């Protein structure tokens, strides 16, 4: 009976003379662990705007908005911390490896959600014929670099590649109203290219 009380008394005294176990968090900054999974953040340099993070997110915390205005396209990727699970799937599935990274930021309480949202904008490449989205410019450039010479097998990539190595004249691609054979090698979306093939084979649409 007495011995157990002494044992507990020792623990009580030790607790009494050591400093409080709780931290004074708002006053002193909290340092999370090294591997802490905090708010995901986009990297301006390495994000190519492919939208893989948007597709794999289990809780749909990432929004992908394609805006087309006056013939110019913009892709906006927005991360909403209120829906985020901090699972790290976006980082794991990022095609460039570090386009989106989980930071160690844990303090994401907000009055206005825009204060904590992370967003990144990308220029979109649009079909010169119908105006549909082909992909983000940075994404296509990334694919082109990844493919190397194999990029010559893809018409859209050819047009970008030849421009880079100064094979192309740099002249603006011109379009007549109808799709025709010459459109196959221009910056057109897959749908329009198929139309161009069909009209070439059959002579009419």
């Amino acid at each position, binding site marked *: 009976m007495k011995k*157990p009380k002494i*044992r507990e008394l020792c623990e009580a005294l030790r607790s009494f003379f050591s400093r409080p176990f709780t931290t004074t968090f708002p006053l002193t900054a909290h340092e*999370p662990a*090294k*591997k*802490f999974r905090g708010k995901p953040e986009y990297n301006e340099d390495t994000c190519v705007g492919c939208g893989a993070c948007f597709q794999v997110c*289990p809780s749909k915390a990432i929004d992908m908005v394609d805006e087309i205005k006056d013939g110019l396209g913009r892709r906006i990727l927005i991360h909403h911390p209120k829906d985020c699970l*901090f699972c*790290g799937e976006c980082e794991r599935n990022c095609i460039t490896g570090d386009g989106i990274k989980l930071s160690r930021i844990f303090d994401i309480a907000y009055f206005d959600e825009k204060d904590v949202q992370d967003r990144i904008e990308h220029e979109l490449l649009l079909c010169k014929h119908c105006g549909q989205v082909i992909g983000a410019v940075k994404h296509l450039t990334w694919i082109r670099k990844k493919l190397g010479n194999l990029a010559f097998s893809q018409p859209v990539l050819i047009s970008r590649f030849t421009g880079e190595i100064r094979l192309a004249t740099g002249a603006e691609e011109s379009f007549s109203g109808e799709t025709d054979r010459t459109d196959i090698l221009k910056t057109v979306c897959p749908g329009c290219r198929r139309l161009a093939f069909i009209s070439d084979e059959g002579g009419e649409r």
Partner: protein
Amino acid sequence: MKNKKRVIIPIGPYHPLLEEPEFFSLYCDGETVVDVEWEAGYNHRAIEKLSESKHWDQVTFLVERICGICSTSHPFAYCNAVEDILGITVPERAKYIRSIIGEMERIHSHLLWVGLAGHFLGYNTVFMWAWKYRETILDMFEMITGNRNHYAMFRIGGVRRDIEDGDIPSLRKVLGEMEGKLEMLTRAVLDDPVLAVRLKGVGVLTRRDIKDFGAVGPVARASGVDFDVRKDDPYAAYPLVKWKVITTGNGDVFDKAVVRLLETFESVSIIRQCLDAIEGKKGEIENQVREVPAGQGIGRHEAPRGECFHYVRSDGANSPVRHKIRAPSYVNIPTFKASCTGQTISDVAIILAGVDPCYCCTERVAVYDAGNKKKLYGFPELVEMSRKKTERIIKGEMK
């Protein structure tokens, strides 16, 4: 009601006291509970349906959020189920890592329970100390997996993150300290004369009751039913390490506490052996899974509260066509019918706590007189009654 003097005490319906909200009516004759009725299904979150709309890999994150305390037990069982369909085994290193995470969770869950049990008995020092010791385990989780809860470690075919050699020494240090503290806490609970009087013989479940209700986990083991999925249906690294199933024979709340406290020592020993096995070695941590063929599989895991069961059926597409989940509390809660009957109202709080349901948002229990629907007791009053009984025992007024 035949007997008008009977008082019905409703607990619920949004069950405040328990992991899955449900509704209890305690039929009381004076101070004594004569019958308990139970209803469930109030907190339907449609997780099984939602999982049919998610990709195989995404479901692990969904099922992780079924329970806030034992958050790794559901992905564990789900991954076991999908691997049963696939017919694959995970790499050995992944097996050890899975077991380490599972056992660390058991330690923190049992410490949480000990703390809450102390709180309900009026032993707030136990509550403070047990939660203080638990905190170091949560810090280890943050260090290894990146989050204090919802570790996101499990993946079909393996684990997502490796335990690096650099983290192992600090984990060993914490386990060493933890063992001393657990020793102190366990002895303090076992030797305490007040707790013995307060808990022994309270809420007794016999072996027969356990078989009848199909109870699992520490609740069953406290009654001498030697049922543990880790031993009976071995998975992960459990057959590769040495450990024993803790059982006691009396089936009262005291024995449930003893089983839980002694299990934490087994967990510490399992984690140590797993760490020995992975330290200084390199290895694959996952088998790549490209697609899940058509078929069905079951997965089980011994969660801190008992057997967690998942059934998954696949038609070869991207997401499950049927996902059935049975959490351990679901089978443990009906045992209240056996354990609460014949007990006093002041013991009900600790008996309900005895099966380790989740106490998320209390203050919703109310005691009503059947005749005039007047509110008699709320949950705070029940806890207060429980504490007063302990005080009376300390003063020597009761035996």
